[in-house]
């Protein structure tokens, strides 16, 4: 009767997954880049004194912008904003999703019906167009506003999965047992249920971050963001306003896009691993 299969810690399971390992390595690199970018950057990000619109050279690995900034420096700084926006929006999205998912999943009944309906509606409202619509009306576009728009349009997906998960878990006998042990609802949620859905939360978090990073880039590209910050999205915005392609400055456009793609896919890859925690069937042989 003993459960003979020795359990591995979730982290081991994730790390054992080859794809997840690649993802973790890439993500770590980007986190380091965001943290230490300014130290690594060859120049100051506000320095506009270089010969403008140059292709890659030894001094400027990725060339310079049309207004004479070093593209590589911008790329390093851009990691900060892009990841900040991504992770903060992702965090807020997950927080909102958790609260809504919990309230809906734990209390059930009418509350659940209403919240589920709201989530389903939010889900079918197309995200980017809604973001554009809101961004088009918002008078100011600071980072805060971008994060707000992102969170507002992004929470429903996480909310729905977390609600479902919450629903499943709160029907588990051990939750009922905890009630028999005299635990209060608060503790039941945080001590009994939450730890068991951690992998879902993290997977959803990464999903939300990926979405936010891509959406931020999209908004910035459309000029609906804040072009005076340096993020990978604004880099592409400026690159295309500065006709980078026309000038043959492909590095100016390719580099930030590649970073976005790598960052986003690193999280997708990590999620391969995290999926296997919740669903052993997906584990690699």
């Amino acid at each position: 009767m003993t459960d003979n299969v020795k359990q591995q810690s979730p982290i081991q399971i994730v790390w054992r997954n080859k794809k997840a390992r690649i993802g973790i390595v890439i993500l770590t690199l980007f986190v380091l880049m965001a943290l230490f970018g300014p130290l690594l950057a060859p120049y100051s990000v506000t320095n506009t004194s270089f010969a403008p619109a140059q292709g890659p050279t030894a001094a400027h690995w990725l060339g310079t912008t049309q207004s004479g900034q070093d593209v590589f420096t911008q790329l390093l700084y851009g990691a900060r904003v892009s990841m900040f926006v991504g992770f903060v929006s992702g965090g807020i999205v997950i927080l909102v999703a958790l609260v809504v998912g919990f309230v809906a999943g734990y209390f059930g009944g009418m509350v659940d019906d209403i919240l589920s309906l709201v989530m389903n509606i939010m889900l079918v409202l197309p995200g980017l167009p809604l973001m554009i619509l809101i961004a088009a009306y918002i008078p100011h576009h600071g980072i805060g506003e971008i994060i707000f728009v992102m969170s507002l349009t992004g929470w429903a997906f996480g909310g729905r999965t977390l609600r479902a998960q919450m629903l499943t878990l709160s029907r588990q006998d051990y939750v009922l047992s905890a009630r028999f042990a005299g635990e209060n609802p608060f503790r039941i949620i945080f001590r009994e249920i939450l730890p068991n859905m951690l992998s879902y939360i993290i997977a959803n978090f990464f999903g939300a971050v990926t979405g936010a990073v891509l959406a931020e880039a999209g908004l910035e590209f459309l000029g609906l963001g804040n072009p005076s910050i340096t993020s990978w999205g604004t880099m592409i915005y400026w690159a295309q306003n500065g006709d980078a392609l026309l000038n043959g400055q492909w590095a100016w456009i390719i580099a930030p896009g590649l970073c976005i793609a790598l960052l986003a896919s690193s999280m997708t890859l990590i999620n391969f691993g995290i999926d296997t925690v919740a669903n052993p069937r997906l584990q690699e042989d």
Partner: protein
Amino acid sequence: MNQSRGTAQTVATKDSTLAARPDRMLRLEHVSKVYTNRDRSTVAASHVNFTVEPGKIVALIGESGSGKTTLARLITGIERPTNGRITFGNWDVTNLRPRQLRSYRKHVQMVFQDPFSALNPQNTVLYSIVRPLRKHLGMSEAEARKRAMEIMETVRLTPVEQFVHKKPHQLSGGQRQRLVIARAIAPEPDLIVADEPVSMLDVSIRADVLELINEIRRTRNMSVIYITHDMLSARVLADEVLVLYRGHIVEQGDSEEVLQNPQHPYTRLLFASVPNPFERSASGTRKGDGEGEVADVTPPKIAATTLRTGVGCPFAPRCPYVMDQCMTSVPALAGSEAHQTACFWKE
């Protein structure tokens, strides 16, 4: 409408040394529970009356869907009855507010069917036992730990030091169920409701767990409601037996009485369905070949589910001895105090 089937029955006690203490007596009076879904409603309990005296083990027997778990959930306050009253000592279980419910559960605990899902995979053995001690008995962490270890001794999770930091997945099925039981007895409840506590366990472990429950009952003088579909284990463990069919109690009484001499056709069907290895060595033939007792009773037909509830005996559609009377009125429990049956048919 269903007329009264007499007031709550007190099942006779065999052991007079355990005097009835009314402050720890569970009493169900005309308890009904109707689940209403979108398009249909299910009567999961119908006019159930019984009492459980302190220190007694009462078995609830019935096939799947007969309403056993429903009764357990009603008694433990997880759900509220649609009708009727449940009292435990001075508690009116039917009207507990959340705060009261929590203190009620110091006195009434539950053991779940599936020890795999009743334990949080993240929590250690010690934590699982310490929590109810702290919450219900208000012990300090140190006290609770000490006490928890004693309880582990009681349920024979020994050597204790080896087990305290294990997590459920490191335990065998039997050990898990012991842990579940340890958890339930930790706050020193007066009543434990055990919903099929051994049905998920291997036969080789069942006896031990049942024995443990029995022992605890004896040493701690708790009442136990033992829910099962397995008549044999009920017979081993219980003092009294209640047979449930579609939310109705169709037979009840002293366990030896009822199980040695089942009266209701449904009880007979159940009894005949129990696999019995010893049967064959006696007869020397395989049951399937001949008539045997099983052939007496018609197997359930799909049509049974379409029966309109409330009219006639619930078992009538499956009953081999069905009479006209059965279709129009509901039989009430009748018979001696030690053995009552709700059936119009008499042998």
